[in-house]
């Protein structure tokens, strides 16, 4: 192994000795529930996309109005699909990197049960109009309290495993997972509880700190932990450079939290705070480029593997989307660019590239990789997995690109006050139609992905019957 390269496990030889050590019940439960919610919330996503094309669709049913389904879509995808799927990966990865059993499988299963209570609660409460009124923190306080409890249970289990580990050296993924658990605790408390004691601009500032870091210090570190583990695993290559992964991790932990106020550029918030947010937003390029360089370096001379390795396809295209989305972010924070794209449809294009194009791709790759291993069988169909990749890829690109073009055009029109507002709405009608069609493609991706995993689980039962 060239100098500086590390394999994603303390001792590579330990791998075979670990066979049979892990029961993985918790990982299985989290994985299956997250995929079920991916499907259910996918239907909600399609519905709200359709409402932009046919605004009167389901228009007389209060529970199904756009303003109540949108938070269900966002919270459902974030806390019903992506986070629990990432948690399933964590429950899978950490015991293997530590060479020991999960600290408590019972506690883990209880966490999974509680998590399902939370998500089902959200599915009922958000359409009923119970909404805290803060983006990403919509869940009513009763559910937020349960989230905190579940998170503590998750933390105890993972830290318990890490502290009893057999290998002294901790692989990169472990740092990111520890960071996720700790930062999330504070970020979540700020966004859901501290905001309740403040008003106006002060509250908005805490709200954006939370929104930005829900992505930056929850989904980013756990997503990168997953990618850092599965890219070397799926390609059977050692990680390119250990030092580079340190640069990425430590710069992330310092830089990310400063940037919340870039959500209110030109808005009623102190100018100096806006300037700080812009400066740190530009610095975000450092942790991103360090990570991407590391991932690409790992693939050096191995790109041919992309031809028929589906998890690797998801991982590497996720990396490209990560690079792009994290280039957009700092650029949006420049005042001149912000004056055009802010508040337009460009922004959902950007947000979907981060959470779908990048982090969901990583999570899907992880699911395809671990499902056969969890149930000790083969994936139901490699061909179908490949189809799901192209559904997600083409649907995703259609979605991102049309919203960028449309959003940029929209922002350009807004900056010319001679154009009546309603004309800028009409101009976007075709864009929203294409967005809906891309959504249909992505939904086909969800269905083929979910079916493949479920069939893998069920087939395995039949083999043993």
């Amino acid at each position, binding site marked *: 192994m060239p100098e500086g390269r590390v394999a994603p496990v303390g001792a590579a030889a330990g791998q075979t000795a670990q066979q049979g050590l892990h029961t993985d019940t918790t990982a299985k439960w989290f994985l299956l529930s997250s995929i079920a919610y991916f499907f259910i919330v996918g239907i909600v996503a399609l519905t709200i996309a359709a409402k*932009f094309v046919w*605004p*009167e669709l389901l*228009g*007389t049913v209060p529970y199904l*109005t*756009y*303003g*109540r389904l949108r*938070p269900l879509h966002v919270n459902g995808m974030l806390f019903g699909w992506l986070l629990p799927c990432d948690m399933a990966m964590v429950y899978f990865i950490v015991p293997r990197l530590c060479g020991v059993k999960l600290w408590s499988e019972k506690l883990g299963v209880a966490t999974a049960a509680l998590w399902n209570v939370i998500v089902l609660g959200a599915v009922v409460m958000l359409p009923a109009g*119970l*909404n*805290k*009124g803060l*983006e990403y923190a919509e869940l009513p306080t009763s559910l937020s309290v349960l989230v905190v409890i579940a998170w503590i249970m998750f933390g105890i289990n993972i*830290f318990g495993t*890490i*502290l009893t580990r057999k290998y*002294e*050296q*901790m692989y990169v993924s472990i*740092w990111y997972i*520890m960071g996720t658990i*700790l*930062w999330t605790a*504070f970020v979540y408390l*700020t966004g859901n509880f501290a*905001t309740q004691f403040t*008003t*106006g*601009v*002060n*509250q*908005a*500032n805490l*709200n954006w*700190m939370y929104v930005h870091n829900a992505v930056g210090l929850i989904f980013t570190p756990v997503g990168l932990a997953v990618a850092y583990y599965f890219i070397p695993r799926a390609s059977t290559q050692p990680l390119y450079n250990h030092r580079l992964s*340190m640069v990425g991790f*430590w710069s992330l*932990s*310092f830089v990310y*939290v*400063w940037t919340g106020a870039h959500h*209110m550029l*030109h*808005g*009623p918030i*102190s100018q100096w705070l806006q300037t*700080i947010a812009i400066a*740190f937003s530009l610095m975000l390029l450092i942790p991103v480029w360090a990570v991407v360089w590391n991932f690409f370096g790992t693939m050096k001379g191995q790109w041919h593997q992309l031809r028929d390795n589906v998890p690797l396809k998801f991982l590497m295209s996720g990396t490209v989307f990560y690079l792009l989305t994290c280039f957009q972010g700092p650029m949006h924070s420049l005042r001149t660019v912000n004056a055009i794209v802010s*508040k*337009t449809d460009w*922004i959902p294009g950007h947000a979907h590239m981060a959470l779908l194009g990048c982090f969901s791709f990583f999570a899907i790759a992880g699911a395809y990789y671990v499902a056969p291993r969890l149930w000790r069988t083969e994936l139901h169909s490699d061909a179908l997995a490949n189809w799901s990749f192209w559904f997600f890829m083409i649907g995703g690109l259609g979605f991102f690109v049309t919203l960028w073009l449309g959003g940029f055009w929209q922002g350009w029109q*807004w*900056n010319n*006050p001679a154009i009546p*507002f*309603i004309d800028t*709405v009409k101009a976007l009608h075709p864009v*929203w139609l294409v967005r809906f069609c891309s959504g249909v493609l992505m939904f086909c991706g969800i269905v083929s992905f979910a079916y493949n995993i479920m069939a893998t689980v069920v087939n395995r039962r039949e083999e043993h019957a």
Partner: protein
Amino acid sequence: MLNRADKSAGFAIGAALVLFFIGGTLTTVIPPLVDKSWGRPFENHDPSKGPTGKLRPYTELEKHGLAIYTREGCWYCHTQQTRTLVADTKRSGWRGVDSPISTPDEFVYDQPHMFGTKRTGPDLSRVGGKYNTQWHRTHFRNPRDLTPGSVMPPFPWIANDEGEFQALLAYIQRLGRAKDWRPDGDYEQ
């Protein structure tokens, strides 16, 4: 130093938290202490310092209106901030008068804040007094009756419930009025 974080979980945790807390405190706890306008309600009697007026707390009816606005997710489609962009002052303005720029002291009673991130519909920071009651009733029943091509959802359950409609209306008509920015009190009822 970084190599130590590689082997000791305790050290890694400590370092990750310290780095996080530096930015965390400096950008959330400190700013409201430094910039007092975040917490002081708007009050100005001097025309040379911009629009005059005074911000008062929400009435019970307006609070109910804000709760409806929150419940129905109006804020996913409407922002409430006239930014420091010329186009914003023109677009939030109406009948030939430009809107004054939004300042932090106009929002100190807002819980939850309704600044918004997405403008599918127009900004509402100065919509108070722009339209009369009848206009709003028709608009909530079906926006396309007044504005063909609109993608705003219909809200018949609000338009047909007098209590809810009056509350939401009271809230809408209050928006942006702390700064008394219209010449000769040119506001609709």
